[in-house]
């Protein structure tokens, strides 16, 4: 089974980093992919990621 990927989408870098650290501490594989956007994430950017 393909491993799930975690995307963290937030407009605040500090919040994204905190959630990423928590997921690592809680041992959720694989390494979460951290994404921060200050403006709304364009759908084409999201499509490239999922």
């Amino acid at each position, binding site marked *: *089974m*393909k491993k*799930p990927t975690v*995307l*963290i*989408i*937030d*407009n*605040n870098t500090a*919040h994204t980093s905190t*959630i990423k650290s*928590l*997921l690592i*501490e*809680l041992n*959720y594989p694989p390494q979460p992919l951290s994404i921060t*956007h200050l*403006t*709304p*994430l364009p*759908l084409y950017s*999201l*499509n490239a990621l*999922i």
Partner: protein
Amino acid sequence: MEIIWNNHPLGLDLLSHLEKESIPVIIITNSSDPDIYRKATTTKTAIGYIVKPFHKYTLASMMEKVLAQYRQLATNTLFIKGSKNERLKLRYNELIWIEADGDYCHLNTPTKRYSIKQSMVKLLEQLDDRFIRIHNSFSINSYHLESILPSSVEIKGQVLPLGRTYRSGLIEKTNILKNRH
């Protein structure tokens, strides 16, 4: 995912997009606005709604829910790219037979046919053991198999060729599957 961006609930649009793609989402937000909560949690894709600040175990319990849903989906579902580059969810029980055609595979359901760029070998690795190869160019969902003839099989009213080298393997595997049920 945060739902409030630049003081606006712009994440709701993104949420509806993720819903179309069947991607599970945990909302982690600063907003305790009941209207935002209601709109976000009525989508099928939102598994949980956490208001910041939160304890790490709140996040952990939500992650368990998401992973449980993911495992359920991943064990019975194949995601393929549609003709408009959209992700389509195809349940294993909808998939009746597969035809290999060069670098492509044609996936046949009772009503539609989808083509994906993938070899038969790679595709069968992703699927479970109900899918059995019956010919160099054909594999079938054995749950829908109706009869095995000397050089063909009948599946959902369709007659497909049965390769000589695959015949004994098909009979053996279908017996194992029958005994398991």
